[in-house]
């Protein structure tokens, strides 16, 4: 083929992966730096401003930005000059799973499992995402993908939903049972005759960081009684370890 413009060939004709191959680690680093700069500056930042702020050459910055726009991590605003973060950056958050729980955390959870009949699970919250930190091996979660995808079907998910919508206390929808205001409950959504109960774990600012959950037959979820005291004690001991 004519060699009139090698660049057109590289940008357009190559497979999407090939563009990065040569200097891949560097390119990914630069791309994340650009995203970080757009996040810091806020919506409407121009390509020139990004280039100036990061000290990356203009042409390189434009190419990086246009690649990020192609993949929809960045969105060009209607004025065609400014940029905002695309909804797709949320997918980056999916990749960043929290670190495995520490030994101190595992010991507290193991203590609870030894004294409670039922599944005891620990989940972590980041933004509007939920991660399973420690699922009870003896009572596995019934449908983990669905629980993570559809926050409304589990007590632990409902805890997070209630957090982003302050008008509804998590206990709303609970039947008139002696449940504390801040707990969330679910019955029969995943397995008929079974349910779960979730207590929030908060840091010292009061932000929701994790959830301690019990899954058990319906009757014990509706009337937890002394179980609630044990769970609340466990949650209180986990808070300084997870915050």
């Amino acid at each position, binding site marked *: 083929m004519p060699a009139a413009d090698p660049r057109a060939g590289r940008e357009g004709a190559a497979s999407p992966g090939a563009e990065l191959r040569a200097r891949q680690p560097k390119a990914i680093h630069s791309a994340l730096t650009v995203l970080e700069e757009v*996040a810091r500056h806020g919506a409407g930042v121009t390509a020139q401003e990004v280039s100036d702020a990061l000290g990356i050459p203009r042409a390189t910055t434009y190419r990086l930005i246009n690649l990020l726009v192609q993949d929809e991590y960045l969105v060009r605003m209607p004025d065609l000059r400014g940029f905002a973060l695309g909804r797709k950056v949320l997918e980056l958050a999916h990749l960043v799973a929290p670190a495995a729980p520490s030994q101190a955390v595992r010991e507290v959870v193991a203590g609870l499992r030894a004294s409670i009949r039922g599944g005891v699970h620990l989940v972590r919250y980041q933004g509007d995402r939920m991660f399973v930190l420690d699922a009870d091996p003896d009572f596995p979660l019934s449908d983990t993908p669905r629980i993570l995808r559809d926050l*409304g079907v589990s007590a632990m998910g409902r805890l997070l*939903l209630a957090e982003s919508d302050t008008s509804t206390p998590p206990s709303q929808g609970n039947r008139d049972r002696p449940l504390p205001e801040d707990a969330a409950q679910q019955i029969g959504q995943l397995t008929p005759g079974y349910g779960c109960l979730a207590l929030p774990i908060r840091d010292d600012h009061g932000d929701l960081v994790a959830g301690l959950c019990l899954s058990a037959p319906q009757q014990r979820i509706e009337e937890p009684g002394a179980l609630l005291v044990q769970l609340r004690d466990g949650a209180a001991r986990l808070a300084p370890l997870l915050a």
Partner: protein
Amino acid sequence: MTALARVISHPPPVPGLAARSPLHGLERRSVGFVDVLAQSVAAVAPSAAATTIPLLVAVVAGGAQIWALVLATALALLVAMNVNQFTKRIAATGSLYTFVSQGLGAGAAFVTGIAMLLGYAFISMFALAGAGYYLAILTHRLWPAGAHSPLGTSVAIAGLAGLVALVLTRGIRLSTRVALVVEAASVAIILVLVGALVAHTGPAVQWSALSLHSATPQNLSVGTVLALTAFVGFESSATLGVEAKRPFATIPRALVWTVVASGVLYLLAAYGQLVGFASLGLDFAGSDSPVNDLANASGLPWMGLLLDLSIAASFLACAIASTTALSRVMFSMGRDGLLPDAFGRTHPVHHTPFFALVVAVPVIAAVPVGCMIAGMGLWDTMEMLIVVAAAGFITAYFMVCAAAPVFLRRIGEHTVGAGAASVITCILLAAVFGVYLVTESTTVRSPGVLLFGAMMVGGVGVYALRLRRNPWLRESIGVHDEPVQHDVLGGAPAESASRAGS
């Protein structure tokens, strides 16, 4: 905590975004890369061009025809590069017309818009007539008893126009898929034919095809211009900016791939025909229908039938793709206010620019049929139509290449490379266009040149009048797809928050 992590967990609101795009009504973000590529490839109609263009080029460029094809491919790539400065940044249905409005303003956009309408409308007429012409030849081959009548061809053209209208109204996915299948079959047939020819004449490479001994600057440039007309339409996927998924990735790639793939096919076809004629001791440039002559001389007459089928199919795909592009440009002008509002209307169920299609398709079918009724031969008519279309496209290419660096400067993303590419391409295109108009003026196709000139002047006049009556047009043109709240982090209430209440 990094700024990125912070905004992901607590997205700050992004103001200034609407809930729907100004180009709402079409099937937004619905077709993938293969469909986008099919749109551009079908509009180029590479298999129809591969059987006709090498001959046309050989007649004017003599032994330099391979080099003329290489130069034309390079020039088309340069144009694609300039167009891609826009397709990477603007998703639109108005294609080059919208792009030029963003760079050079309303006046230049009018000129480009008229040129694009002429380009797409006349190439649609050309393709429809071509499909009817080859369908008639095919019918004649199968039923030699049936007379070769203009009436039969007219009915074929009208029927094909009805088919095009039906496919286009029923949705963008159907149009691009039909174009893809038809064009893929057509290209496959051509490749089989070229392969059969080369196998028949022996596999040795004939380097003499690359000899420059008979090339002069003049025949090389005329040959390049003619070869360039074989690429027009490659930009047409830019009209799918709203309907394509990930348009900023798929459309630029489709443009470049189309040029490269067509260029390779043309070179293969030209080489195959050249070698075939040389081995049989025939005169290539003196042939009327080289592949048919080759087929007969090689004792492979079945190839002729396949070939006619392939060309008819390629023309039909071209008619579908070109009318798709034409209707999107008219739709864009309807939303801009340049054409009456009705052109901006879409079909409530199929989300296609219904009104533009209803107006455009009958006109496209009526022109070739009318010319035949008036006593013109269909092939002569087609040669005239393609001159108007090619001139329209080259005009629009020139405008968009000139607009690219101005646009980049306006949004603060200009680079030295982009500026240089624009200047070089503009100079080459201006030279090519001059040579083309002068050359065509001396042939039997000269009425096509006059027609093009008259329609450009007339069209710009009409728009100038419209602009004088509606001065607000100056501000309103150039509508493009805009990100909606859902596309942006923080643009709309988070999904989880809206679900929490339920």
